[in-house]
Every structure is written in C-alpha cells, then in structure tokens.
C-alpha cells in the first residue's frame, strides 16, 4: 500500500515536472523586474489566443499568440498600465479577446440575469411555501377521520 502511494506520487511529480517543462517551452519570456514579470504572466493568462480561441496567450504555441505576447511584453516595458494593454487589445480584436469580460451596456442583461433569476426563484419559493401553509390544516383532518373509522 505504502509502496503504491509512493509510486503514484512519484508519477505525479514526474508528470507535473513534464508539464512545467512544456509551459516553459511555450513562453520562455523573462522580464527583468519580478513585478513586471508577475503582471506579464497575469495578463497573458487573461487574454485569449484569437487563433485557438479556447487557450490563453500564455498557453498557446501558435505564431499569433507569440506576436501578441511580444506586444504585451513591449508595452509593459514601455510603462503601460494593465488597463491600457487590455484596451489596446480589445480595440483591435474586440472584447472577445478578454477572458474576463468587462461590464458594458451591451452585456448588462447578462450581468443582471442571475439577480433577476434569483428574484424570480425567491418569489416562486415564497408563493409555494405560502400555499402549502394554508393547505396543511386541510390535509390533517381527513387523516384523523380515517383513523376513527
């Protein structure tokens, strides 16, 4: 049992090491300042690769993702803010490039929908409970009558 657990964890470690290597191979960029590097990593993870569409810039091996990562890097080095870079990207590729969508008039209904649905649910719930409460005494009586006969 012990041996099996040890073997499994060893396998996991080997696999994750392998993955780390792959991730490093996709994007070897290192910025001189650790703070910039952290922002670079965060930004490239929240921008979409437009060619593969379900991968972030950081994870995608395609050419266009590399070009866009280079843009992120250059603009960070030029002192641009994260919001500047996001705006720059969405001016070219649309909001679709942002994995974390922004609030806008166009998608307001999407942001509001959960609250509205919750409200509808609460109303339905309240009505059902209220109806049940008036039903309860009525249900009770026939049972007692059954017991007597």
């Amino acid at each position, binding site marked *: 049992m012990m041996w099996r657990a040890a073997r499994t964890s060893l396998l996991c470690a080997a696999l994750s090491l392998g993955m780390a290597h792959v991730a490093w191979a996709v994007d070897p960029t290192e910025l001189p300042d650790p703070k910039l590097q952290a922002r670079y990593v965060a930004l490239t993870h929240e921008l979409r690769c*437009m*060619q593969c569409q379900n991968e972030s810039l950081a994870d995608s091996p395609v050419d*266009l993702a590399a070009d866009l990562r280079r843009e992120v890097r250059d603009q960070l080095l030029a002192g641009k803010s994260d919001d500047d870079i996001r705006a720059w990207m969405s001016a*070219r590729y*649309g909001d679709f490039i942002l994995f974390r969508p922004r609030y806008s008039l166009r998608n307001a209904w999407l942001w509001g929908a959960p609250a509205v649905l919750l409200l509808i649910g609460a109303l339905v719930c309240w009505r059902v409970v209220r109806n049940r409460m008036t039903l309860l005494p009525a249900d009770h009586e026939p049972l007692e009558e059954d017991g007597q006969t």
Partner: protein
Amino acid sequence: MTRFLLPLALFILLAAVLAVGIRHSPEKGVIASPLLGKPAPPFTLPSLTDPAHAVRSADLKGHWYLFNVWGTWCGECRQEHETLLQVRRAAVLPIIGLDWKDDDAQAVAWLTQLGNPYQSVGTDHSGRVAIDWGVYGAPETFLVSPQGVVVYKHVGALTPDTWTREILPRVSGLPAGKT
C-alpha cells in the same frame, strides 16, 4: 389557470430568446471586428514587388479598396486566389495585399505562378500591421471607403458570392456600367 399559463409564458419567452440568439449568431468561428465603422489602421510597409517603393495607407485615401491579408503558407488563400483575379479583372476597385509573416521569395514566386491580383503588396514580417487590423487568421479581407473607414470585413476565402452579395452593394459612387 395561471399555474399553467405562467410556465408556458416563461417557456415561450425562453424559446424566443434562444431563437433570436440562433438566428443572429454569427457564422461559426467568425468574430465581429471592432474596426467596422472606424478608420482603417494606418500603415507604411515595404512593397513586395517594388523594393524602391513603400505601400502607404495615406496614398490610398480618396477611393475604395480591398485590403486582403494572405500568405503562401495559407491554404485557403490559394482557394480564394481565382476570385481575387476575377475582382481585378472586374476593375471596380484595387486590391491591396498584406503578405503576412511570409517569405518574400516564395510570395513573389506565388504571384508569378498564379497571377497577381494586387495593385500593390506590403510585406509584414513582424505581423505588427496585421495585429493593428485585428487579423487572427488568413485570409481576411477588408473593404475600405474613400474616407478611409473600414466598411466590411470577410474572414476566410473570398468567393464570387461574397463579392457580388456583400462587397459590391456596399461600394457606392462607382462609374456607371462597372459591375
């Protein structure tokens, strides 16, 4: 009565929302360009065919043109090439090519072999201009007005159908008799 009417009404509402969503959903994988209705991104690029000159967006102001992004590495570009040649023969508007991240010698060979539909071709080795245009896969074609505004964008191979149905009707103020 409301017990049944309310869920039914909700169902009809949901069905209507989904129907509209399906009807208006863009073609599979095609992303609406934020450039539509906006000024075309300016560019100055070395010309593929004429090293002494540059291809400048500023020189294109004042008349309609198609901006076509292509590359010899792109399979669909070969498919649309015949349509581009037809557009050139129609002589309604010039096509400006953007040779995207390509090898110059191969691109020149491609044009010599298949025919050159372009008035001029700019080479974009770094891909910087393509990014400004929001290009995410070749081929892509933009229609730009004389005022320099992007009027229409087509993603994927251009077909004679797209040309007659989507592009030609958008081009206004053409000399009579040219279709």
